[in-house]
């Protein structure tokens, strides 16, 4: 029986240790210095780049930033649950529909006019309630051992052509895919977009439910599949991870202004409920300033900075060389039309 007691003591000792530890961590958490200001950032963007941005921001302004990172869908749901009591000051996310969703529920505060002027007006909300920070572009990724660039479709519509049956991989639940759907619907109407989606589904099956673009690009690189539809930076991140010699894939852009050639915007918004409005405005202004945009360009997020006069990562084709269609963030909205179409095509 002595050993039984030993077990109980182990349990009790562990419990006390854990309790003490939690006690400590909660107390250090709440007593974070009164001298300097601290804001809370809900972050759904590339975490390492966000950390680099924050370090520079704190150095410049003395304002500390606490970060909560999660997927943009969950953070948006969490912000809606929190409502007016949200501890968040700023929300920085990958795709604009989430910001549009929060804006629709009147949870965002207007961005300072001077800050809005740091980026092209078309890349921010027309209400001025959130601001564009960086851009990504939709491209085809293909396995360069299996296909030649000259064989590839130049229009997104051709992807539904039966000749690509079994050669395509699709991640329809990935929000990066929605702007493409919206863009096709805007260019050709809902009926044609739906037929196109059904064609994509039949070409991609059984690989029409890939969970994310990381998997698409990695599968194409391994040769599991011939090609996939992604945002450009997934390719560059994979290349950075495994090194150029291990890369057997390449990117192909659609024809200029093709509905599949979409420039998608990543942005930030300030919560109306924030009690640190001034500091939050400073943070958002920093993200879109030359200093912030330069950090974005040099990190390994491989997105395009959209602020004036900041060159992109030299690995990427220059921003000026891109010829996307005229589809803007305002056209995308909350992505509802894309959602409906994807569900009708049984892709969601």
């Amino acid at each position, binding site marked *: *029986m002595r050993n*039984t007691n030993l077990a109980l003591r182990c349990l009790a000792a562990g*419990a006390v*240790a854990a309790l003490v*530890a939690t006690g400590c*961590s909660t107390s250090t958490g709440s007593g974070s210095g009164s001298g300097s200001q601290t804001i809370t950032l809900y972050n759904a963007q590339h975490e390492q780049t966000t950390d680099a941005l924050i370090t520079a921001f704190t150095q410049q302004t003395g304002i500390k930033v606490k970060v909560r990172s999660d997927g943009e869908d969950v953070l948006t749901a969490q912000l809606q649950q*929190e409502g007016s009591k949200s501890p968040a000051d700023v929300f920085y996310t990958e795709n604009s529909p989430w910001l549009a969703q929060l804006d629709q529920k009147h949870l965002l505060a207007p961005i300072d006019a001077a800050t809005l002027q740091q980026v092209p007006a078309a890349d921010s909300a027309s209400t001025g309630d959130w601001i564009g920070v960086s851009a990504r572009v939709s491209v085809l990724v293909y396995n360069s051992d299996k296909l030649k660039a000259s064989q590839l479709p130049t229009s997104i519509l051709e992807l539904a052509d039966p000749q690509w049956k079994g050669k395509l991989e699709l991640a329809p639940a990935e929000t990066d895919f929605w702007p493409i759907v919206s863009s096709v619907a805007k260019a050709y109407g809902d009926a044609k977009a739906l037929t196109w989606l059904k064609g994509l589904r039949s070409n991609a099956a059984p690989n029409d439910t890939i969970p994310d673009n990381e998997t698409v690009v990695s599968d194409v690189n391994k040769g*599991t599949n011939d090609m996939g539809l992604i945002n450009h930076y997934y390719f560059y*991140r994979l290349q950075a991870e495994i090194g150029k010699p291990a890369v057997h894939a390449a990117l192909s852009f659609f024809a200029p202004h093709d509905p599949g050639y979409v420039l998608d915007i990543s942005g930030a918004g300030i919560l109306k409920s924030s009690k640190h409005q001034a500091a939050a405005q400073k943070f958002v202004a920093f993200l879109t300033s030359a200093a912030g945009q330069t950090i974005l360009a040099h990190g390994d997020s491989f997105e395009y900075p959209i602020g004036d006069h900041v060159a992109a990562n030299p690995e990427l084709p220059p921003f000026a060389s891109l010829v996307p269609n005229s589809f803007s963030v305002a056209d995308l909205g909350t992505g509802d039309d894309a959602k409906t179409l994807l569900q009708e095509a049984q892709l*969601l």
Partner: protein
Amino acid sequence: MTSSTATATPAPLRALRARRGRAGWLVYVSIVIALGLLSPLVLVGLDARQAGWTEIHRVLFRARSQRLLVNTVELSVVVVTAAAVLGTAAAWCTERCALPLRRLWTVLLVLPIAVPDFVAGYAWHSIRPTFTGLWAAALVMTLSTYPLIYLPVAAALRRADPGVDEVARSLGLGRAATFMRVTVPQIRPALIGGSLVVVLTLLSEYGAFEIVHFQTFTTEIFTEFQFDQAAASALCVPLVLLGLLVLTGESRIGRRGRVSRTASAAARIARRRRLGYGTAPVLAALSALIALAVGVPIGTLLYWMHRSQRSTLPAAATVGKATWATVDYSALGALVAVVLALPIAIMAVRRTSIARRLIERSTYLTQSLPGVVIALSLVFFSIRYAYPLYQTSLLLVAAYAILHFPLALVCVKVSVVQAPPRLGDIARSLGRGPAVVFARVTLPLIAPGLLAGFCLVFLTATTELTATLVLAPTGVHTLATQFWAYQSEAAYGSAAPYALVIIALAAVPGALLGLWFDRERYSRLATEQSSRPTAQGPTT
């Protein structure tokens, strides 16, 4: 023992009455605990209502739902069967066979539970990208959930009275027949309890299925979640119904069969059978199991680290901090779960009634819901009614306890079933107060179950991701969230060390479980030899 109860004539009556009184109190405590555990369902209901009938109708009644239902049911049947066979066979090997390096095996066999599901999924998928669909999902889930059956069954085998088996054998029953007709009924509660938890885990599993492209209601909830939280909640309804169905089925089968002993309280450890020529095949089979369940994921992680071209391996300090946070939250969550499971287990075992069974069964339901749904409902409640708790470690600890409560309950219950209540009564009849009896007789008797429950919840909580991301204090990272942060940026090499630490961390409770049970075995043999019944309580 019988003589001691016979001489103290008024005592049994008093003890009985006292037990009644205590039992009533237990039911009330259990109801409060059950309501607390079920509270997340309220938000699911509210959300589903907010979504409206048309939306519910749209997401539930379409061709896709039928496929999801078929997928979910098929997978559950395959995995539960496979995990039950594997878990029971493994438990038999470690408990009833003279296995070389037995202690090591008892540790290794528990380890797969500490391999995060998304890591296992990625590992298999990266070996063969065509590794997808039902059988892929079934393989990954069988390998990661069989310990949920192995642990309670091993504990039951350890405590089961070998005397009954010996009697059956001496009466001429063959080895296989003895196993089926005598041993299986003895381990039945453990087997069924374990299977129940496996099914509920499958219902709420997400990470692994997403990777092997296998769609269930839970993966659909995550997809739907991207558009509309209310509609996602509507999709929880079939999950809850499936959970209810499984629980009803379990209580039907579970009622048959009772644990019996040749002599009350005189539990004896079965002599372990020599394997002889069977040693090599058994060892080979166990090694293969561990290689598939733990070797493949660890191998993949090491490969990631080796292949990665990035120089940014995480600093040791960040790993250390994340480890500490993980241990801290998981241990507390496990402790809370075990403490809450204790009254419910005692209530459910000491006397059976429909009401008691309902209370106990209801506590399993939340396990069928994905972690993120539970987490967001805790956000909902704490924002409205307990704002100071929001985004503190306490809320995360509560989430772990709620999410993994059934794991604790299964373990604790098995122990309580096997601890004869009579021993407590005898102690009461000898004049000890209820608190003393509880602390010195009941608690030591069920300690193995408490410890097993603690370890199991701890192991599972260290790999929890979706609820942790929502509820952890802002700025705090755990091993799982750090792994996710790097992995979701395709920085696999930087992600790998965090997963490796999770697995290494799990070796500690795994080893503790295995080693502690072994010590107990020797001490009990010693008590037996001195022919003093354990009923006397601990002698300090």
